């Protein structure tokens, strides 16, 4: 009888150990679900969805609280407050746009809740010396540096024309390109900022063609990239290289338009064929689940959610611990090696390696830097075919 009771007690003590299945964490996610940025915001949501599936397999049960910032900074602020004070999440991933990220970066400090920004590119956000804000992606200046660095290595361009959309991303991209040009002996012969959504860029492109630039540096989101390339072909603009910085050039839709997109370069945070662990399988899964190729928005959101949820689980949802672990941690996933460090005036910034893709025969191929490249770049631009 005594032995039986001891056995019973022992078993009862073991039950919690067996019942300890998944770790539960509560994570907040702020995104542009509606509003003008919704098309790209959707990529982030999809990336997060896949992340949640993977986390579940790892034994981490994420209670995700989604908030829509509609692209407006004050709504992002309301969302952050709600997540931090009412939902009591362990950490927050997001938002998408730079202006929303700028508005809430200081809130992270105020409410001592870690904020992991997946892909907003405005440099200033992580140059404020904030201890609770972390960023995964490279910043705007990196978009320009990698493209122009490549161009100067492959050819000897002397002149550059800049076309950028008149938005935050476009203007800071143009600024970075100009700074690079000043430091590296490139002359900017034309600089045109356009309002996105315009149906006709022909006159702009014609005046750029007149200045005969060696390379054309373009910063575009949305489908303006398609219009710009289409109309460049019409006008007969044919420089040594088309350097596209920005999501517009990264899209599958542009790649499909082979007549106009062949041999266009674009700088990107991630490609499907880069040799980082899990990149390709992620891309395949994404296509299967959502019917289209993932963009780097999806991959950065995925990795950010993985990092945040894993960290929250390790820290048992203690916010100070989360911040501490983010600061000290190292990861190596489909975004390559990730560590949040301080450098060049940045705080908690992951020194992310940007990549350059080139559209070759309707597909995006990683061509630069050589260490991560799958194919060789075609330079200079062979001209518009028939």
């Amino acid at each position, binding site marked *: 009888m005594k032995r039986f009771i001891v056995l019973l007690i022992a078993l009862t003590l073991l039950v919690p150990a067996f019942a300890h299945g998944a770790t539960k964490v509560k994570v907040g996610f702020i995104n542009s679900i*509606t509003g*003008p940025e*919704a*098309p790209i915001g*959707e990529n982030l949501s999809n990336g997060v969805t896949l992340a949640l599936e993977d986390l579940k397999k790892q034994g981490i049960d994420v209670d995700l609280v989604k908030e829509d910032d509609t692209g407006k900074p004050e709504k992002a602020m309301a969302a952050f407050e709600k997540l931090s004070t009412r939902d009591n999440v362990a950490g927050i991933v997001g938002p998408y746009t730079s202006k929303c990220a700028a508005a809430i970066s200081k809130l992270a400090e105020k409410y001592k809740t870690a904020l992991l920004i997946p892909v907003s590119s405005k440099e200033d956000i992580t140059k404020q010396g904030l201890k609770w804000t972390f960023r995964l992606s490279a910043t705007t200046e990196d978009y320009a540096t990698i493209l122009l660095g490549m161009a100067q290595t492959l050819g000897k361009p002397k002149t550059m024309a800049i076309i950028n959309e*008149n938005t935050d991303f476009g203007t800071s991209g143009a600024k970075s390109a100009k700074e690079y040009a000043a430091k590296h002996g490139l002359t900017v012969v034309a600089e*045109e*900022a*356009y*309002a996105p*959504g*315009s*149906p*006709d*860029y*022909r*006159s*702009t492109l*014609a*005046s750029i063609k*007149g200045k005969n630039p060696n390379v054309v540096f373009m910063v575009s989101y*949305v*489908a303006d990239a*398609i*219009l710009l390339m*289409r*109309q460049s*072909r*019409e*006008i*007969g603009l044919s420089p040594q290289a088309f350097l596209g910085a920005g999501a517009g050039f990264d899209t599958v*839709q542009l790649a*499909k*338009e082979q*007549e*106009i997109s062949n041999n266009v370069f674009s700088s990107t945070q991630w490609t499907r064929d880069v040799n980082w662990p899990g990149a390709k399988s992620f891309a395949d899964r994404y296509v299967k689940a959502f019917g289209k190729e993932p963009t780097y928005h999806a991959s950065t959101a995925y990795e950010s959610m993985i990092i945040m949820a894993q960290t929250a689980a390790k820290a048992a949802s203690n916010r100070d611990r989360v911040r501490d672990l983010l600061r000290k941690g190292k990861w190596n996933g489909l975004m390559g090696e990730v560590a949040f460090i301080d450098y060049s005036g940045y705080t908690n910034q992951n020194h992310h390696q940007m990549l350059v893709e080139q559209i070759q025969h309707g597909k995006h191929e990683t061509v630069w830097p050589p260490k991560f490249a799958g194919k060789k770049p075609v330079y200079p631009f062979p001209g518009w075919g028939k």
Partner: protein
Amino acid sequence: MSILIQALISGILIGGVYALIGIGLTIIFGVMRVINFAHGDLLMLGMYATYYLFAAAHVDPFLSIVITTPLMFLCGAFLQKTIINRVLDALPQNQILLTIGLGLIMSNTIMLAFTSDYKILSTKYSSSSMHVGGISISSPLVISFAITAAITAALYWFLLKTDTGQAIRATAQDREAARLMGINVKRMSIIAFGLGSSLAATAGALISPTYYIFPQVGSVFTLKAFVITVLGGMGSVVGATLGGVLIGIAESVGGVYFGSGWKEVVVFVLFLLVLLFKPSGLLGKSRT
């Protein structure tokens, strides 16, 4: 110099599409004095209809206007009968808010149904162009221009020579007098809105091979439509045609001289100048 000519030609061609949008709005405003902020969204509906006809049934966008135009006419007529009709006598700001609300409903319903993804309608001739003396002319735009001209001519004939057309013009000129003359002004309003909607949708169809499609695309065009309508003179079809082409040219050439960032300002400044010095528009008649 060739840059200027290039700008001029592209401006004229895109102006043709603008003109179609403006004509639709001018008919609506002329007949009903309603400021239709949902006009761009009607264009958007036309674009989506064209896209799905192309994607599902491979109907060429230019040919599909045979289907889209009458369809959108019915749509517009329905909208007028059920909703817009109630605010014809309301304060202008209420009309504006109502049409804004309608526009929001239209664009968000489409967004929920088809997601906000950008849709590209790429035809074999989307990127083709002709080269004349160093100037490149976009082929699809030339075709749209031709179709626009044809539609404008047909519309003009309709307004001048048919009874219904003249009834519409009468209503636009003086609603009360027309009513006294036995014209069913309610019916005229329905026809006018239907007509305006179908023209906007047609413009959308015409521009879809060379532009891109997403739920909020309308907002870009609504404001421009107003500028064109006022420029040409509220209620004047020929005025709107001229206005459209003028705005196209102003944008294009302005972009070359002031930098593309200032393009919109050129259009708005032109707009204000016209409003100040000839408020009835280039071809409008002076009317309080």
